[in-house]
């Protein structure tokens, strides 16, 4: 019984939140990593692309809610995701046409593109705030919990509760489907293969008749989809606030680099590594150990390795260590 209590406490406060957060980071990191692999620069505007796509989805959700459409226990926002993706796609394709294509034609160095993407980031930043404002927006509806802590306690008779939010479950399921689709696309379809070929060697790909503009367009479309899905899932799970999305950029980049930037598998692994290190290493083990240990050995202190102040430091220490010993990331990505 005590063992079960300990496990449930751990699951409730570490495993479930970290899995959901990790899935959101993984989806974001996938977008970053794809752009790095194919367009060859680190896209600093990714967080704000997420914010923009989510904003479109939020507006569409409000429209659907006003029209009386609902998915029952599931959030209405799921229906609005395609609208969000379309909005994000229009924005990134327009940006590519107006800005990035110019630098691509000049064969600008990646570092120039990075700085350009920072400029884009500020423009997106302003656009999003201009339309929806800088405030918190709540657009989640439907059933909040798959199982709430209180219900779980009554059901199992344990002292500890386990809460699983609908949005957390949804995040993991949608992330899984998205990742599966992406890998199927990259490995099995003609367009996906041409993207990988373009990523491996641009000149060879050109010689074998691959249209580079088409590869770029498809890449942006996929990135818009990934960014919007990640953004909507995150917004459903927490809430939508443009500034927070901008700040998401940091853990997302950390995830992509730890995993090995340019490698999609690495992005997913990196997302979970960052999420678990943020939540896990600063966890206070007092409660869990209290259940596991005999009474005489129960800890008095919190048994916390590091104070929660250091949670960001932890993920960046991991980043530094990985780069020191495996400069290409956990999975073999490209060196930066």
């Amino acid at each position: 019984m005590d063992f079960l209590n300990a496990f449930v406490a751990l699951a409730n406060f570490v495993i479930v939140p970290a899995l959901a957060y990790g899935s959101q980071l993984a989806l974001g990191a996938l977008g970053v990593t794809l752009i790095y692999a194919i367009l060859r620069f680190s896209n600093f505007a990714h967080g704000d692309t997420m914010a923009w796509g989510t904003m479109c989805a939020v507006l569409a959700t409000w429209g659907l809610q006003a029209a009386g459409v609902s998915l029952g226990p599931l959030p209405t926002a799921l229906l609005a995701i395609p609208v969000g993706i379309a909005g994000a796609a229009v924005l990134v394709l327009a940006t590519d046409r107006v800005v990035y294509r110019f630098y691509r034609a000049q064969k600008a160095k990646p570092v120039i593109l990075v700085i350009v993407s920072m400029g884009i980031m500020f423009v997106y930043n302003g656009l999003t705030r201009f339309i929806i404002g800088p405030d918190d927006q709540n657009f989640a509806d439907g059933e909040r919990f798959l199982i709430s802590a209180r219900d779980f306690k009554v059901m199992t008779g344990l002292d500890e509760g386990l809460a699983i939010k609908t949005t957390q479950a949804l995040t993991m399921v949608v992330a899984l489907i998205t990742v599966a689709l992406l890998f199927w696309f990259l490995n099995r379809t003609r367009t996906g293969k041409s993207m990988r070929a373009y990523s491996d060697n641009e000149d060879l790909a050109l010689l074998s008749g691959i249209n580079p503009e088409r590869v770029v367009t498809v890449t942006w479309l996929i990135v818009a989809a990934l960014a919007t899905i990640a953004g909507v899932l995150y917004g459903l799970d927490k809430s939508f606030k443009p500034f927070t999305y901008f700040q998401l950029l940091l853990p997302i980049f950390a995830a992509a680099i730890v995993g090995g930037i340019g490698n999609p598998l690495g992005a997913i692994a990196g997302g979970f590594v960052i999420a678990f290190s943020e939540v896990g290493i600063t966890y206070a083990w007092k409660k869990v150990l209290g259940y596991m240990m005999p009474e005489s050995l129960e800890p008095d202190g919190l048994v916390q390795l590091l104070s929660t102040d250091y949670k960001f430091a932890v993920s960046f220490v991991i980043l530094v260590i990985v780069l020191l010993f495996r400069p290409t990331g956990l999975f073999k990505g490209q060196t930066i």
Partner: protein
Amino acid sequence: MKKWLLASALPLATAGAAYADDAKIGVILGFTGPIESLTPSMAGSAELALAEVNESGNFLENVTLVPVRADSTCIDSAAATAAAERLVTTDGIVAIMGADCSGVTGAVLSNVAVPNGVPMISPSATSPALSSVEDNGLFFRTAPSDARQGEVLAGILGERGISSVAVTYTNNDYGKGFADAFEAAFTAAGGEITLAAPHEDGKADYSAEVGALASAGGDALVVLGYSDQGGKGMIQASLDTGAFDLFAMGDGMYSDALLADLGSDIDGSFGSVPWAEGEGADKFAEVAEAAGVNAESTYTRESYDAAALIALAMAKGGESSSAAVAANILDVANAPGEPILPGELGKALEILKNGGDIDYVGATNVELIGPGEAAGTYRYYEIKDGAFETVSFK
């Protein structure tokens, strides 16, 4: 060189002559920056008080009070110091109504006010650190220190019989100062704080903080943050995981948006918020409305009171000098004397003129304690059926 000196001295001399009867009051607030939406109403309220004094005709013989605005930016200490320096050296102000945010207020006080002997009254700086700062008796505030709110909140918890709590605060001067004050008051009263964990605003995920706080345990979670920032995120995550279901909240958490977002989940939670009620606040609303100033905005009452105190202190001292303001503020703010409400500054000036005593009550029931800061009235509220309900005033 001589010519240049002469040329630059000339306009100064004529300016001095032309405005000999003006006493300039610096209004240093963050007209740009994070609180730029609040400051126009604050400045308007302060200038309202000065205008009222001028119109009464009972102020010092031939002296008119002239407000001079400057931008504190709320966050940039160097810019605020430069702005204040300019007011003192170029405009020759005799007193400062401001500054607003705690950080820049401290900077202006130690870099400009103290070296030049200019008194300042802040309407909105609440950091406890300002209570013990070296001020040569020049610093006052009409906003209460968060140290006081820490005591109030600890008292509320004591009243409810809650003796073990976890604390989370926003990681800045406000949150840290507030949390320290609360911790001191709560442990002194025999309470136990299981863990005090800071949270960063605007971050992606608060599971780590909530996990640690849940392990530490406690009967309630004390949230000293902002309702539209990490404070709400912490409450949301605590509710979701079932870590805590009772919350005690500081003033930054008081907002209708919080109720709208969290709904009935936080019924039964409670908190404190600085509050002005009663005759003074009503009277101020009346006066401000007549003058077209938004009285409902934050810290407008404190701003009106700050400016009024400067004028009354001058009248009491019988001259429009910095020394008169610094020496007489406590005198006019506190008992004994005739109680003075907003809109009655003319009456107050007449009493002072005739050598009488006044007790300025103002819009916020001004009572300056300790080193010259407002005791403050706090509203102790509880959330019932998705609305804030007043339990009592403290």
